[in-house]
């Protein structure tokens, strides 16, 4: 049983929460500009690390508000809890954010309104 400290309600049991999967996964603004492969990377691929993971949680049976969490997927240690829309501040969280391959995907560049996608260059 995970004990999760909701930023608004305090420490509660994991059964009060809903899991939202990978955090910082941005929806592309202009999906038409992405190739099928790049779109499938956004749609189906989630980071699945053995170790530090940045993820979204919602206090579904409490205040119903969302927040981000840095958690170790092997030990289940909760390293940091931080608000939606912000980046982690712990060294583990920062390193995990930077090293995630998603930072280099065309879908993420598209979502941030950066360089246009090039066909097949999803890496």
């Amino acid at each position, binding site marked *: *049983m*995970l004990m999760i400290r909701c930023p608004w309600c305090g420490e509660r*049991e*994991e*059964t009060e*929460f*809903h*899991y939202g*999967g990978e955090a910082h996964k941005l929806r592309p603004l202009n999906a038409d500009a992405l190739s*099928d*492969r790049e779109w*499938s*990377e956004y*749609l*189906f*691929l*989630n980071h*699945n690390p*053995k170790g530090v*993971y940045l*993820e979204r949680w919602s206090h579904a049976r409490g205040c119903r508000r969302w927040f981000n969490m840095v*958690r170790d*997927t*092997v*030990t*289940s240690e909760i390293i940091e809890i931080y608000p939606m829309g912000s980046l982690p501040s712990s060294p583990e969280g920062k390193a995990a954010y930077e090293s995630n*391959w998603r930072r280099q995907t065309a879908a993420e560049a598209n979502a941030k309104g950066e360089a246009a996608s090039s066909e097949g260059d999803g*890496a």
Partner: protein
Amino acid sequence: MGNDGGTDWLGQSGKTRYSVWSLVRNALAYHQDWQRAWRAPEPKAEYDVIVVGGGGHGLATAYYLASVHGITNVAVLEKGWLGGGNTGRNTTIIRSNYLWDESAAIYEHALKLWEGLSQELNFNVMFSQRGVLTLAHSEHELRQMTRRVEAIRLNGIDSEVKTPAQIKEIVPIINTDPTIRYPVMGGFFQQRGGTARHDAVAWGYARAADALGVDIIQNCEVTAIHRDGGRVTGVETTKGTIKAKKVACVASGHSGLLAGMAGVRLPVESRPLQALVSEPIKPICDTVIMSNAVHMYVSQSDKGELVMGAGTDAFNSFGQRGSLPVIEHMLAAAVELYPIFSRLRVLRTWGGIVDTCPDASPIISKTEVDGLYFNCGWGTGGFKATPGSGHVFADLVARDEPNDIAGPFSLKRFEGGYLIDEHGAAGVAH
């Protein structure tokens, strides 16, 4: 001990064929002379094929590479011990009652191989066609189930819808009171389904593969996958570098990590799937009963324990441990459905790390790296497919082209959109 002699049964390493006569002979010798079931070789410098993962699927792949395709210069690398991952942690249920044609083809292929497996491997895998009964707890679930039964039957696979009264006949201990939280509204039954002994499956394939010359190397973890110009050249392991022309990865929950070593990404997420056994009791349940609505599946092992499966943890994890809230949720429904269970004690609980796919169907596929293949994504229900999975994966690795059964399960389906959505038949929500 360690008698490696005896008569050939598969032609190569001089194994004694298991039979009633070998049993009698060894009984008279106080069981001191049983030969070892497989060798423990040091890795060679190079292999034609390296199979990464010594669970049922990996060992089956190696066995069929040798027996069907004549490729015997094969190593199976296992980071722990044989069958110590999900092969030893599942609830051993076997069935082929899936909705879509693609799934029916692969799971029925597996079921047909199960039916002759003990004879083929000369190893009793204790395959028991005791039937699998799936319960419906609402009118809508029953309607959906009826539709699935029609689809299954159109694929030539046995399945029939059952009424609550018929279910009560099959499972006398079940509570069919319509006022309970999850009432039994009906269900469907596949008589050819059942269970097998999970350890025996790993050991049987290991012994038969070893007899054909396959090297089974335990305590050997792969730490890197070597490539040269887009082609796989071997692996780095805790026992040194091993070259290979082809590398076939069958590592369930750790598949994503292996893929990452070669720069390949897989649409899988790793979750612990929860299971438990009760203390052993006299026979009370001679079939397998599943309930998707409450994430419960139960059968009674030959030792008398009730083997019960629950759902997955709600979040990604590589921690192979039991999780009380998931188990509690399942047991609350189980004791209402089977009041006789209420006084049993839980003997042990555990979790196995399963690799779940977005469409709840497996991945049997080539990758962008030549000579690198993946067989993964079986999620919460891979055990039942073990022989079929190994059989078609060996075919893919040997020919570098998928056959008709494996073809639809390519990684390409996530780009093309041809998903095989089996969330309804998978039994556990992903």
